[in-house]
């Protein structure tokens, strides 16, 4: 007999791994991507493909160059590319998604040490870079009927015109490729909830906070829920494992912070939208949040003098 393998327990493991998680999130974003292509045409499709390919190639080249194991099959670069494309206007020139994805993966993720080590959501880093560098190109919008125009949030902010709920819900309205259709986003998120890849804590507190504060500021909460990037941000970006807290209480604080900043930025800043900056700001606060929300063990007692730490028996 060959020598049996000896390792620590446990000797069985769940089938879920990084690949299944990342590819599940990619699948969950397909309804939004398809809706974007349906409403905005083939240019949206090209933007999505270019962004994904650029992200994957960038990760592959950097890993090869650094002598690391190439992990582009795990789906995380695909996910970054796809998410970035979904938060771009369908009118951007084709070099924009390419540059954005290269920046997102290289500066947003790889310089920190790759997957698991980045502080900020890479797709949002890519978008922030593009918005800061080419603000005019990044804020040209088009409606699905082909007429250029502002996004619903901008129309509300600068012109006081409010779009209808059904347009916002189905996505037949101006905005980023993947953010306009609430229906498609909810479908995808439903899949992630069902698969238990995300849970209610971050999206729930995020969206809940926006709703409550829009009521407090005498705004239409349904409009704020459906318009702009709130749903894609709360369901698919704030829930990014790497850049959100791992503590249960931390998740609630993180969600609240994102929601609060979003509504404040939407109502009181120079921009019509605030989801991107809110999440990026809260990403930076994650280490601090985790530090103050460290969980206490089951049966924790405030230490007196000497904590008795002897092993105890257990049955079972």
């Amino acid at each position, binding site marked *: 007999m*060959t020598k*049996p393998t000896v*390792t620590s327990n*446990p000797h*069985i493991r769940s089938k879920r791994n990084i690949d299944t998680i990342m590819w599940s999130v990619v699948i969950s974003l397909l309804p939004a991507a398809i809706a974007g292509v349906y409403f905005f045409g083939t240019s949206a499709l090209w933007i999505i493909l270019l962004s994904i390919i650029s992200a994957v190639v960038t990760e592959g080249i950097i890993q090869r160059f650094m002598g690391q194991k190439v992990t582009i099959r795990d789906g995380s670069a695909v996910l970054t590319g796809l998410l970035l494309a979904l938060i771009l206007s369908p009118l951007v020139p084709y070099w924009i998604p390419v540059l954005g994805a290269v920046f997102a993966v290289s500066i947003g993720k790889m310089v920190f040490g790759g997957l*698991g*080590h980045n502080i900020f959501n890479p797709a949002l880093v890519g978008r922030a870079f593009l918005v800061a560098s080419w603000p005019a190109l990044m804020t040209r919008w088009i409606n699905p009927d082909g007429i250029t125009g502002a996004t619903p949030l901008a129309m509300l902010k600068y012109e006081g015109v409010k779009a209808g709920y059904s347009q916002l819900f189905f996505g037949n309205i101006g905005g980023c490729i993947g953010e306009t259709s609430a229906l498609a986003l909810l479908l995808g998120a439903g899949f992630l909830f069902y698969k238990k890849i995300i849970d209610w804590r971050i999206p729930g507190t995020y969206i809940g906070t926006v709703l409550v504060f829009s009521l407090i500021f005498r705004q239409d909460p349904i409009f704020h829920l459906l318009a702009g990037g709130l749903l894609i941000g709360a369901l698919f970006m704030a829930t990014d494992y790497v850049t959100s807290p791992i503590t249960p209480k931390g998740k609630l604080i993180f969600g609240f912070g994102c929601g609060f900043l979003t509504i404040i930025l939407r109502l009181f800043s120079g921009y019509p939208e605030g989801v991107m900056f809110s999440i990026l700001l809260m990403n930076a606060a994650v280490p601090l949040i985790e530090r103050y929300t460290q969980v206490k063990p089951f049966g924790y007692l405030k230490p007196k003098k000497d904590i008795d730490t002897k092993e105890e028996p*257990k049955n*079972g």
Partner: protein
Amino acid sequence: MKSFFGGIHPKYNKVTRREKIKAAPFPKRVVIPLQQHIGAPCEAIVEKDDTVKAGQKIAEAKSFVSAPIHSSVSGNVLGIANSPHPTLGKCKGIVIEADIETKWHESVKKRDNVESLSKDELKNIIKEAGIVGLGGAAFPTHVKLSPPPDKKIDTVILNGAECEPFLTCDHRVMVEQTERILKGLKILMKILEPKQSYIGIEDNKENAIALFEEKLQDMKLDVKVVRLETIYPQGAEKNIIYSIIKRKVPAGGLPMDVGVVVQNVQTAKAVYDAVYDGKPLVERVVTVTGAVKEPKNLKVKIGTPVKELIEFCGGYDGAVGKIISGGPMMGIAQYTDDIPIIKGSSGVLVQKEDILKDEERDCIRCGKCVDKCPMNLMPTQISQFAQKGDFEKCKEYFALDCYECGSCSFVCPSKIPLVHWIKYSKNELMKK
């Protein structure tokens, strides 16, 4: 449904749940280790070439937290040798060549005056019978039954959760020996005089729940059967106490700190054997399962080599990957099948070669280990500090409260051996 927070749902694979308990083939030679329990090792009281009988005490406990050891066979002592041990790696053991026909020691005889025995007499019988917790940790039972005077016990819980995947030995004992378990429990209740008593069973063992309810009515015993959610690690002591009576054992503390004593169902059965039949703990029921040709529940003499049990189960089914003493979640991987069954052995699980080839990746901070930890710890943080050698930080993150159930490593999508690192940090902290 009664439960605790955290926990996981592994595939249960209880393939032997309907296999009746069979007697394992008689061993030709047994190796009975001098340490099979938590506490001080025993001292041998037999020598090479002595003749011993089954049930005869062959090693004496030298301190209170310890339990004497008895021969499981009659035969000749071949010597005392360092031999493989399922939990300690190597340990001194008494090697006995067994007679073909078992001669029982004269001390092993039925008692007909059980009702009239006093508490102290009962406790002494249990102590002298070498009974330890048969759920796995093997803590001496008489110690649990002798709480210090300032710890008033008001609750007794019989643990029939058997939450480990694959294992069915407790289940079979509950189904086949229901009455003996209850009579054993009655003795425990007589000793401890609790205000309330429970039997906790996971709801994947409906027939056991029904049998206990029926028998309890017949015996007019004031014990409640509690149907527990089937979730791992429901059977861990602190978790089952919380599931049933919602009391939290303080971190670093013992169940007696909240007035509770928990005993495994097979332990109760062993108490019955010791008190009614005068039989010390020399055999137990073990599930032999996984990649063997015919998985079985076996009644095994302590000291029987695992190799013989595997042969009796038709031998290995394919190339062997791991041989595990215990279940897949908390069991210990063995380097040889030359180990004996000891008091705490609940199962032998064989795994094929092709399992667990997962590639380890960096932590993606999904937080699943934090969500699933039944002790509410942060396994990924402890593991990262342990890898850096910062054990003080491990302590700040309560590494010492981990009882190594394995839920964190089970769910980790990055396949990080979290338990391994936490154990490492605990060992380093213990050294100080």
